[in-house]
């Protein structure tokens, strides 16, 4: 028992000064009894975090976290700054905002911008706008849900879609996304869900930025058929 050993509790509770903290850390390296005791305190308290009441997380927290991730490609590229046109942003509905915020941050900053950046080094000047978004309603008998967002970057429009709880498919099936204009459907990407049934897709709407107003997901046997043949899983207006 060294004179430092009694500081363990205060080290655990971080009430030591910076100097004491460093001193104790040095001590800890060479004191097996303190190492063992520290593990004991961690073990004795490991249940306690779960005593916490679940509180509602701010809906935009995830978006803020993902937006502040340094972009990988910025190491050898121009500075990544994405001014989002404030005036063009619609207020997000309460129900969509939590999903939409995360989707916006992770998809826009990630997949879409990243690919854009490869061919567009001066992305810093580009303007990303959220044109519209919608929650797709599940068809009867499924618990799937999805958020679709329409994003514009200059002239380019992109459909972003984030689906969760998609039922597991058999090996020869796939999830096809459609945009529907009147009664004319156009294929708009394939969702490849992970093992937990979550999947995202971003699809450039090069020829499709017309007047379509509905997004749907169906189960198909083949990709990009002229029209859906399989069961509709989710659909919604945008």
């Amino acid at each position: 028992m060294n004179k430092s050993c009694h500081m363990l509790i205060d080290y655990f509770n971080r009430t030591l000064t910076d100097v004491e903290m460093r001193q104790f850390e040095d001590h800890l390296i060479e004191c097996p009894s303190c190492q063992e005791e520290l593990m004991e305190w961690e073990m004795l308290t490991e249940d306690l975090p779960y005593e916490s009441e679940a509180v509602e997380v701010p809906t935009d927290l995830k978006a803020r976290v993902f937006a502040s991730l340094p972009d990988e490609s910025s190491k050898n590229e121009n500075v990544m700054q994405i001014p989002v046109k404030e005036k063009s942003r619609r207020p997000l509905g309460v129900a969509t905002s939590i999903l939409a915020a995360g989707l916006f941050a992770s998809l826009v900053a990630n997949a879409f911008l990243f690919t854009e950046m490869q061919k567009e080094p001066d992305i810093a000047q580009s303007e990303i706008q959220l044109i519209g978004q919608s929650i797709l309603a599940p068809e009867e008998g499924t618990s799937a849900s999805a958020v679709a967002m329409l994003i514009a970057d200059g002239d380019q429009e992109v459909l972003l879609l984030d689906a969760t709880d998609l039922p597991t498919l058999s090996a020869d099936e796939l999830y096809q996304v459609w945009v529907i204009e009147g009664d004319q459907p156009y294929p708009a990407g394939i969702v490849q869900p992970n093992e937990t049934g979550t999947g995202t897709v971003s699809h450039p709407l090069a020829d499709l930025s017309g007047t379509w107003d509905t997004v749907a997901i169906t189960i198909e046997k083949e990709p990009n058929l002229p029209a859906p043949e399989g069961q509709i899983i989710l659909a919604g207006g945008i």
Partner: protein
Amino acid sequence: MIGTDDVQLYYQTVAHNRHSFEQLYDRYEKLVFSFSYRLTNNRTIAEEVTQDVFLKLWNGTNQYAEDKGKFSSWLLTVTRNKSIDELRKSKRHAYEPMLDKDSLTEETVSTEVTAEWNERRELIRTAIAELRAEQQEIIELFYFKGFSQSKIAEHCKLPLGTVKGRIRLALKHLKGIIGQEGGVSNE
């Protein structure tokens, strides 16, 4: 047991796989935020802590290793450390923590983590309620308030030299009750 692929997702996160990071984030966001709020009673600090904890996971500032125990326990320790640091910092600057009881709401999204968490919460609360008031208080002051030994001694009118023993006894007693009731504390 949930989170069996936590470690794998963690290593993918360190390798900057956004998808894995997002899975970890979604899994633990609410727990990290709620725990930080429990410790600080301040939403602003809980937000900062949650951002900091996850960003440091991504950029490798906080490094997990399997010899540090379960990933979830480690993540919660990191959360507690940051929370009590930030709370102290805010008190030094004389900001009053905002009491914000309105934000206590039932959850809207049920994930595997929240389901298991609900179960554990009930178990722990039942067990804590079985402790004597002095033992409940010393756990609150030590773990949730992060008081120093001398402050606990002062607050509980105990000789300084006995504080550590009292805390240990209270926690062991609690652990014993939890073990009897649910046997989930050492899964």
